């Protein structure tokens, strides 16, 4: 089989060296390493399709991988197999003269899309996930990543106009308007059933995304940043709710544990506005009233400091707290946030001493999505300490159980799928039927969902 793969992509793009397998055994999270059997670096969708045909014939697992910057083990193989490094699919296509949409191959990184569009006076709605300078369009869609700008634009699915997906049998499907060969990827809601949605968040279990079409917008004129301190979780949640209700923020985050020193109080809320100068002024005024009504205390400068270095600041914080880390996250209604957050705080209170002894840290925050709130709990340790590393993995599973039981619905799932599957019921049965139909030999990232 490996010689067939080498014929497809060229021998220089296939590796079975032990060190190479090791390098693909992890993502950015602290899921324990698991080795694939072979790495292939295709450069085109046609090569991806051919690889799938061969793997399907040999019933060999195929694990698609973008940047590998997820933290849930999405590209960490559960059953060995062929790791497809899709970062070689890197073309950006802007065919429409007006640039109202942009097509990016699976391996294109977010910051590059942003840069290319900026030169044309355009931008995408969402700025990509925490790892935007490395995260790929295909990988982010495959795990349903939450992105910077979710307060205004919601989940990634809202920005997608169509996908190109390679299926297990090696066929290639274009979804949305582009299903019509004579059309472009300009509209998702076409042709009956929304097959685009099948791939969003599928972790590559139903097909391998080879191209993504995204909406673009006029480049914003201005930005403004705010930070507020609150003395109760309820007040902070009400403030965030107000921003969502009045459609104010481009991005909004909450800090509950730890609250940055510069903010203080029980919870901190930071948010960012984007738009024209007059829009910013108007939205800024509205937001200040919402914050005042929720008893927020303005903390000047922190908002700007946070958002100007929005990606770097997060990586630095993770690095300082860990650098080993895992996260459980998912969506709930905004006003349910305080109750769930308190359960999580209670969970950690009980484990305070053990965590301290093992040098384990944790954090609790929130990210506003247009109509819901994402509640991420991160767990950090130094992986030099094997016992701490093992313990954060068990905390991870315990927290997933706790949070999912309280209604939290995750976007990426990765190696936490066992906690979800048992709660899905008919939803899982439907997914299973679709999976069996699309991938009868179960070669696509098997065991992941």
């Amino acid at each position: 089989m490996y010689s067939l793969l080498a014929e497809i992509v060229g021998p220089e793009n296939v590796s079975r060296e032990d060190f190479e397998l090791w390098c693909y055994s992890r993502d950015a999270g602290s899921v324990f390493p698991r080795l694939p059997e072979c790495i292939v670096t295709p450069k085109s969708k046609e090569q991806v399709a051919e690889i799938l045909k061969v793997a399907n014939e040999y019933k060999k697992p195929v694990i698609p991988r973008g940047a590998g910057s997820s933290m849930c083990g999405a590209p960490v193989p559960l059953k060995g197999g062929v790791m497809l490094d899709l970062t070689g699919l890197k073309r950006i296509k802007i065919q429409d003269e007006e640039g109202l949409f942009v097509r990016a191959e699976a391996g294109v990184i977010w910051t590059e899309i942003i840069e290319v569009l900026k030169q044309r006076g355009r931008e995408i709605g969402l700025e990509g996930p925490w790892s935007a300078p490395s995260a790929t369009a295909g990988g982010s869609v495959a795990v349903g990543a939450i992105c910077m700008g979710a307060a205004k634009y919601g989940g990634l699915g809202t920005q997608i106009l169509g996908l190109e997906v390679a299926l297990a049998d090696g066929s290639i499907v274009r979804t949305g308007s582009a299903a019509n060969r004579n059309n472009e990827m300009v509209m998702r809601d076409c042709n009956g059933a929304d097959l685009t949605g099948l791939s969003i968040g599928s972790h590559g279990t139903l097909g391998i995304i080879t191209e993504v079409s995204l909406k673009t917008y006029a480049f914003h004129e201005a930005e403004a940043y705010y930070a507020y301190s609150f003395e109760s979780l309820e007040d902070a949640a009400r403030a965030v709710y107000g921003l969502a209700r009045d459609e104010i923020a481009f991005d909004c985050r909450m800090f509950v544990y730890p609250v940055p020193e510069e903010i203080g109080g029980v919870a901190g809320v930071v948010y960012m506005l984007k738009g024209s100068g007059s829009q910013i002024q108007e939205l800024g005024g509205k937001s200040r009233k919402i914050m005042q009504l929720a008893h927020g205390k303005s903390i000047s400068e922190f908002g700007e400091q946070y958002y100007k270095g929005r990606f770097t600041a997060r990586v630095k914080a993770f690095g300082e707290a860990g650098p080993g880390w895992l996260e459980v996250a998912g969506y709930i209604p905004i006003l349910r946030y305080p109750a769930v957050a308190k359960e999580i705080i209670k969970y950690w209170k009980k484990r305070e001493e053990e965590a301290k002894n093992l040098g384990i840290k944790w954090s609790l925050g929130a990210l506003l999505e247009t109509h819901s709130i994402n509640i991420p709990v991160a767990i950090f340790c130094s992986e030099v300490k094997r016992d701490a590393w093992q313990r954060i993995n068990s905390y991870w599973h315990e927290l997933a159980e706790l949070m999912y039981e309280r209604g939290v619905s995750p976007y990426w799932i990765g190696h936490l799928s066992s906690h979800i599957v048992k709660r899905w019921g008919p939803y899982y049965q439907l997914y299973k039927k679709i999976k069996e139909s699309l991938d009868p030999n179960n070669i696509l990232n098997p065991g992941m969902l």
Partner: protein
Amino acid sequence: MRLKDLTEEVYKCIRCGWCREKICPIREELGFESTYARGIVLTARGLLEKQLNYSSALANRMYLCLECANCMEHCPLDVDVVGIMNAMRQDLVKAGLAPEVFRQVDRHVESTKNPLGIERNEMVKWSEDLGLARKGEVLFFVGCYPSYKFPKTARATVRILRQAGIDVAYLAEEEWCCGTAQYMDGSAALAQRLMVHNLEKIEDSGAEKVVTTCAGCYTSLKHEYPKRIGELSFQVLHITELLEDLINEGKIDFKNEIKKRVTYHDPCHLGRHSGLYDEPRKILNHIPGLELVEMSRNRENTRCCGGEIVLNTVFPELGKRLPEIRVDEAANLGVKDLITSCPLCVSNLRIPARKRRIKLYDLPLLVAESMGVSGK
């Protein structure tokens, strides 16, 4: 430093991957994780955790890294990738697994005191008619490449400095290879011997300032000597630093107009390793008639032009391709002249530059031309 001494540094990496796209020239060509910083650090971790063992295949991969440090420039956590790479290479050398080309280079250095393996008596030829003293306040540490391959640069440097009132001293055959290649390649003990020798000879010369045109020698003398063998009793200057000072003191007279639209390639050793970005540009901007335009990847984000010895020998395709990409960047600007300030870069870039009909200058040559002291 051995890899086990860098355990904390290895574990600092969060695997965010910000070092991946358009950062590492080797990764851009080969595509695999092990070819760039994140994979290099994870490989180091695999070795520390005994999940991996050193092997010839691993050595071939680890010796691909050019140590251009662009990954470190973009690392939000400041992981010392170059330090980790050097430590792994030291372990590989110790295990006898370094690729043959490096062992060959070490043998050259042992016997001829230069990595090119050229006989010692060739080294001083460039200076024979210049009457350079062995002792003096300002010492010119010429370096192997200008001495053996690019004597015009060495001669131009002497003329420029003489014109500015500085009669430089020269160690002649007592100048040995600075040790850059050896410490980068893991031959730490050999690097140490070279450094100790050079330090002793420089001190004997009574120099208060040591100037070099080679960015590799400069990094070595300026940063690695103090780190590895102790504090220096003299100041180390790259020619671009000294020239800038001399221009500010009014001691450089650019007589000739040079009507050229040029671009400048930042050598990794001078830029990312040493932070000298403005000095060469200021000098170029002083040359009358010269217009400097920038390539899209410049200063901190400069694309490395390749590593001649390793790549040309072990990975010839890469060795050819990397300088070609850099020259193409210059050509795409529509310039006919490419300036750099390191003989190692000149050596890498010269063939593709010739093919694209781009004239390549080491900076002292252009300065000498404008000062009217080009000579032979």
